[in-house]
């Protein structure tokens, strides 16, 4: 325990009376007022004031601690939400890519199917005209009619078929290859 000198006691009491300032902190618990009732009163008041100040600080610190804890929790929740949102966004983007890809494939398939139909119709028309002109030419030869015009037509048609056959076959093969369903 600390024995405080008389002049120091008087000085402390004087400061307390005039300026309302008291010694603070745990050191107060070490002051031994002895039989000095006035200094005992000073120490008691100082300890009570110190306790009140500490109580107030403790309450505020606890409040700040709780708010801090809540903020940390909220921050963690926000981070989790952000992470979930990013994952959802990524999923949506992936789904969008798949849909766009499917749509593109569908459009391509439709285009190829259309080309396929056009090529087939054209082929049938050429073949049909070829068969018709051949039929007319044969009929003309059998009936001993004038075959000059039908012979020229037949010759033209056959030459067209011959010159374009590779191109037509290539186009048909290309359309078939492009319109094949992708292997899973």
């Amino acid at each position, binding site marked *: 325990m600390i024995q405080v000198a008389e002049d120091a006691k008087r000085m402390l009491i004087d400061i307390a009376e005039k300026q309302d300032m008291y010694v603070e902190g745990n050191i107060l618990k070490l002051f031994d007022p002895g039989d000095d009732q006035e200094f005992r009163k000073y120490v008691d008041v100082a300890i009570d004031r110190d306790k009140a100040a500490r109580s107030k600080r403790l309450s505020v610190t606890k409040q700040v*601690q*709780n708010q801090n804890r809540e903020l940390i929790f909220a921050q963690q929740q926000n981070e989790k939400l952000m992470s979930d949102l990013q994952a959802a966004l990524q999923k949506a983007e992936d789904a969008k890519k798949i849909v766009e890809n499917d749509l593109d494939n569908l459009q391509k398939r439709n285009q190829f199917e259309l080309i396929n139909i056009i090529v087939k119709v054209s082929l049938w028309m050429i073949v049909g005209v070829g068969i018709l002109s051949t039929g007319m030419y044969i009929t003309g030869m059998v009936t001993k009619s004038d075959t000059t015009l039908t012979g020229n037509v037949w010759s033209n048609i056959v030459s067209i078929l011959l010159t374009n056959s590779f191109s037509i076959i290539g186009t048909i093969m290309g359309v078939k290859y492009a319109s094949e369903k992708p292997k899973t």
Partner: protein
Amino acid sequence: MRKVGCGVDDKGEDTMIDSILLVDDENLFHLVFEDACSLLDISLKLQALSSADEADRLFKAWKNTPDLKPECVFVDLNIVGSSFDGAELIRRINYEHGNGVVIGIISSSYDRKEMSKAVAAGAQFWIVKSDEIEPRLEEFKNDYPGYKSRTANFKVYS
């Protein structure tokens, strides 16, 4: 004279813990603990550290100057920014730095496995942190002489 103290010793007199060391990464809790200890007259001297590594270094240094060693140590279980946890710090203080100090955990955790680990490391008590820490510290204060004389069993204050 105002009577201050921590627990009641064999002679029936109030005794106060000479000095306390708190190892906890939460700086705000340092203030809470300091004020609570002061209000409850648990200890006059209190040192607070935020790192288990720093505490480990200090205990190594205190081997040569045992007078500077605190009488009681409160260790947080999870000390963020440290190389090891509170249970490991307790084990080091007890088994590597020669001990003699009353030591235990102060944590918001109530994990039985961690408690067993702490007991194995030499923890004498476990105080659960909460808003109402004062009643737990007061109960600890009453039990303190038992911890000091190594007669009290491990106890959880919750």
